[in-house]
């Protein structure tokens, strides 16, 4: 199953002009636990999908609202700089959304 189908909400946004943060919100604890436990859901694999260093990717579970937050440096230039494609960072949840666990 693709992550996009596992999550109830999947959204990306800048957290400041240099940082990208992606929230995966789940309907139930089972999906939340399954994604967190999946071997494929790792900082290494996410880093390769986005072309950023592995040690710059953070996976941060927020159990209270069954959400997993993934934070990394913006893969391209900073927000709105030459070469940027997404000033607000709102459509950067792909290719993570395409990840099959």
């Amino acid at each position, binding site marked *: 199953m693709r992550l996009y189908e596992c999550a109830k909400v999947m959204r990306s946004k800048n957290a400041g002009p240099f940082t990208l*943060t992606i929230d995966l919100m789940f309907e139930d604890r089972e999906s939340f636990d399954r994604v967190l436990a999946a071997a494929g859901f790792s900082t290494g694999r996410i880093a390769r999908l986005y072309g950023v260093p592995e040690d710059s990717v953070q996976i941060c579970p927020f159990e209270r609202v069954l959400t997993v937050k993934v934070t990394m440096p913006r893969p*391209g230039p*900073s*927000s709105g700089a*030459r070469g940027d*494609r997404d000033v607000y960072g709102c459509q950067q949840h792909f290719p993570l959304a395409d990840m099959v666990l």
Partner: protein
Amino acid sequence: MSQAMGDEIRFVSLCGMLGYGYPLGSLETAMRAGAEFVGVDAGSTDPGPYYLGSGTGFVRPLQVKRDLEPALCASVSHGVPLIIGSAGGSGAAPHVEALLEVLRGIARERELHFRLGVIAADIEPQTVSDALAEGRMRPCGPSGSLTADAVRSCNRIVAQMGTGPIIAGLEGGADVIVAGRSCDTAIFAALPIARGFDPALALHAAKIAECGTLCARPGGANDALLCTLREHDFIVEPANPAKSCYPDTVAAHSLYEQPDPNCFYEPEGMVDMSDCTFEQFGERSVRVSGTRLVPAAKPTIKLEGTALRGYRAITVAGMRDPGAIAHIGQIEAGVREAVSENLAGTIEADGYSLRFLRYGMDGVMGTLETERNTPPHEIGFIIEAIAPTQELADSVVSLARSTALHCHFEGRKCTAGNLAFPFSPSDLQAGPVYEFAVYHLMELEDPDALFPLRFEEV
């Protein structure tokens, strides 16, 4: 201002962004509920570096007037302060001035009189260079090490003020505060902290309040949120009776635009939410407690500075011919070569950038796109040129456009033209291009000293 422990303070956040709109009834409800001040955030870095760089707002003056007029009238008639932070969007001198112009216009039309406190947030490049030389500058997140060149390249630098300068304005008797670039939290935490309420709770409440009713259901930043701060907790409630807060919607707010849902950083220190409790309190409100503040070892403030990186021109077109779509790479290479040959002697290829955005193919993700198997039946095409002057950018895009239109490729059938232009003129000037060259933290003994405050009787 007196201590008020054991007491409570109620305030209203007008909406998530001054100019994004809110129902007027929500403001009336909030005033009737006894709001002791009205706060509103007027800025953000979300729309990118252009607005700080160019000194313009991303919300039009008419929208600002629409939102500001009822708030100013309510504040004056109820005798409670109105606090506006990050005035004009980016909070530098031209932004503050643009907001003051709207404010003074309303005051004239409605014959309102009040004491105005204006706080500037502009920082001299020399101040940053000195701090850099003294080792007092560090990156904010992944913004990299700051260099002296980056500081020199900035056309404008602002700093985000904390609660201190706003408290000074209120203590000086201001009825209305117009603050330049501010921490979102400072707008709403200043008065409660000055009145002696717990800074941890005040900052957490402020963090939620600055987005209006984004923490409610139905969500959205375009409505007013009431906050009541008490000795050991705070309560949030949408002013609009059609909206409700729930423990999950309020807790989930700490995810929004934040790298870490358990904490955030302010000049006052790290606000730790990991032990917070969120409980339903009445039908439409939520009670929050347990926030802690870990004071900063060394006070810091966040700086934002922009540098001009050239001028942009674009052309927008569509492509429907399957042969042209299949050979798009070849067309692009041909255009690049023709443009660079044509302009040799005027500008070399490393002096400008030429970019092809291919919507329907990989326009959003670029090289990160993984979906490359199905050829699209149609693509949207933007050709972008960035060059040291507008005239050069216009010329690069014009040449690129005519070349792309007529560029030959293998097996070409659409020999009259490869592109469908929706507009005449087909090329658009997009003006100066800026970049955040400074997005760093500055350590300093007295952060409040950087934000001069002046008063004015309106």
